[in-house]
């Protein structure tokens, strides 16, 4: 009795599995068609709004909106959405509206590939993403295989722009590391430097490694080189103590702001008063909840975007973003915003039409990306080289009286 029951249960489950497989195939198609219908209705709405071309562009985006890096993915999601809405309101790319679909990757390589495949099922034509580096590399292998145009707003590892279909908006990690060392060296900020970095984080260790090699060229002396990992990133007293004992004049923090806020607070408690210098990961420091912003006084950071810059573009972006999402945008949101506008510029330059398939669009954009120059939030006259790297100048800002001030 029991065994036959098991057998039948097993068979039933096999069938259920097969059914699930087919069902999800079918299920996805129905969602596709509904999406298609939504697109049609959207397009119909646009024709009344004065657009002439048929169809829409399908712009996909991937990033983490759950998990430990959700804050960056959420910023990218919002920033890109804002740009898409603005472009659509102004008539779209060459008169064609954009459809936008954002998929969660949880900051995981495997999930990122799943997200990419989901977007492919949705007939995505261009991809903004992914937000974090390791997933970006994994998706890159797939997108280059499919010849899908990929522009990552914030994937800063070198390999994120490895293939010719991949471009990025942010600086690469080595670029930031080298630029930081050069900036400190050229402005004679300090000669004895301590570093506290996250050895388990790609971004942090990428900057750290390049900083070390460039520091030697700049005549900087690394007196303490202390690492922590994602598993013990709440108590930094050991690292701070070592930095203090080494007599460092400047502490370089190539890390994200959540840990930096703790380091600043703990350094203050331990009576370690020194100069802190960081990269774009520190952007967001002033918005940490319950963080005493006086602790961040005089902290310097190298970032392409400062939310309180006074140029028209930034002011407009920050106001719109705050109105819609109720928070001050960080650099990730700005990168994503620029990414969407870069795609718009490149698509218009290359004469892309929405009836082209992803591969054709990619071939056109690969060329036209190198021909455009846009004034974005994260840099003026941004240009791209064929290897996917952006050409823009890093800006250093200093926190004075609780606000970023350009240096």
């Amino acid at each position, binding site marked *: 009795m029991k065994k036959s029951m098991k*057998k039948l249960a097993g*068979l039933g489950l*096999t069938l259920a*599995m097969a059914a699930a497989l*087919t069902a999800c195939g079918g*299920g*996805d198609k129905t969602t596709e068609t509904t999406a298609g219908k939504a697109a049609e209705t959207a397009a119909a709405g646009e024709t009344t709004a004065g657009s002439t071309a048929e169809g829409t562009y399908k712009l996909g985006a991937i990033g983490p909106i759950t998990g430990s890096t959700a804050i960056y993915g959420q910023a990218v999601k919002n920033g890109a959405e804002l740009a898409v809405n603005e472009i659509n309101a102004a008539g779209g790319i060459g008169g064609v509206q954009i459809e936008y679909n954002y998929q969660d990757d949880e900051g995981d390589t495997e999930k990122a590939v799943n*997200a990419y*495949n989901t977007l492919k099922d949705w007939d995505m034509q261009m991809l903004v993403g992914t937000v974090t580096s390791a997933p970006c590399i994994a998706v890159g292998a797939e997108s280059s295989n499919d010849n899908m145009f990929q522009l990552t707003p914030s994937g800063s590892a070198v390999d994120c722009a490895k293939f010719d279909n991949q471009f990025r908006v942010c600086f690469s990690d080595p670029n930031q590391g080298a630029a930081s060392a050069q900036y400190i060296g050229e402005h004679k900020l300090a000669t004895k430097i301590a570093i506290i970095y996250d050895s388990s984080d790609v971004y942090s260790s990428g900057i750290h*490694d390049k900083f070390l090699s460039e520091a030697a060229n700049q005549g900087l002396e690394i007196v303490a080189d202390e690492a922590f990992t994602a598993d013990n990133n709440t108590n930094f007293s050991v690292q701070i103590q070592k930095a203090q004992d080494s007599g460092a004049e400047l502490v370089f923090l190539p890390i994200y702001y959540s840990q930096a806020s703790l380091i600043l607070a703990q350094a203050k408690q331990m009576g370690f008063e020194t100069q802190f210098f960081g990269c774009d990961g520190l952007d967001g420091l002033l918005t940490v909840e319950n963080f005493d912003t006086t602790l961040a006084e005089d902290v310097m950071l190298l970032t392409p975007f400062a939310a309180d810059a006074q140029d028209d573009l930034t002011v407009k972006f920050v106001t719109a973003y705050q109105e819609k999402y109720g928070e001050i945008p960080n650099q990730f949101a700005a990168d994503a915003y620029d990414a969407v506008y870069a795609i718009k510029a490149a698509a218009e330059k290359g004469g892309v039409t929405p009836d082209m398939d992803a591969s054709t669009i990619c071939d056109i954009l690969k060329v036209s990306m190198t021909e455009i120059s846009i004034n974005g939030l994260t840099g003026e006259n941004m240009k791209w080289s064929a290897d996917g790297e952006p050409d823009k100048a890093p800006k250093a800002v200093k926190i004075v009286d609780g606000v970023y001030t350009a240096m």
Partner: protein
Amino acid sequence: MDKSINSKKFHLNKTTRSNLITYGMVIAAYIIVQILVNGGHVTSLMKGLLVPLCIYSIMAVSLNLTVGILGELSLGHAGFMCVGAFSSSLFSLLMLETIPNAGIRFFLAILVGAASAAVAGIIVGIPVLRLRGDYLAIVTLAFGEIIKNVVNVIYLGKDSRGLHISLKNATELNLEEGGQIIINGAMGITGTPKNATFTIGVILILITLFIVLNLINSRSGRAIMSVRDNRIAAESIGINITKYKLMAFAISASLAGVAGVLYSHNLSSLTATQKNFGYNQSIMILVFVVLGGIGNIRGSIISAVILTLLPELLRGFNTYRMLIYAIVLIVMMIFNWAPALIDFRKRHSLKRYFSKNTEEKEAS
């Protein structure tokens, strides 16, 4: 169908028939999927998920060997997967030029991954399996974290002078011009060739099943289970407890290593994070095993497949999917294992099957 024929003709015993059903289930699923893929009925998402499904099925079966058959709780199974993934990926990258044939290279990579994970399993197992109770769970948990953290600080590069290794940073490697960094600390390994396919995955599942099911039904397997059921009794009849425990544990670890090989050769970027090789993953695999039934190999595969598919199928719900996934998990656990519901299912839903069965038996 073939099972009933088998049973009629050869009067197979209960376990052999049950095993054949398990193999048949995998093969049937493979054939169905292949037909659907060839017919173009499968979405890109599903195609992308086929290899992960194989990976997690193998993981679940291998963990079931430790938890269900050996009766020890291992919370660091993802650590063995990590060992397999990194060692095989390293092998593939080093041999990229030496062995140009992808098939042979991947075959050797699987062996390398399985062997290194087995070695890791033995190293952990020797001191720990002598202990009793929950110590194994604690030590394996620690082991998984140690592996993940060690992998995150290894820098390994290759140039004309040979291999260089450092635990500090990439510049310490002192590579020559044109040297290639293979393991780059937290950035892991990039550019592993994508050799894993669904067919290879299914073959590996079948091999895993073959190893595990045969082990269970062998003399050694009975010894292992006797250790699980009553350690003192087993010892008193002269069974070498440590030997059999270590045997099961090492086999389980090496199979996890095989899953790791598939994992690393499916994605071009391999990093050891909390998400993929941390204890979250280990516990996720334990969930597959518990849901599928501890000691029930077939159940492990089914639950691994369902629970891997579920979050992807729920993508339509956006961020709510995490919540829904958790609720579905709770409901499934209750449905499967709550005593009241087990009674309920016995009384109601399977009644029809019972009557059919008796008919079948009468007919035969």
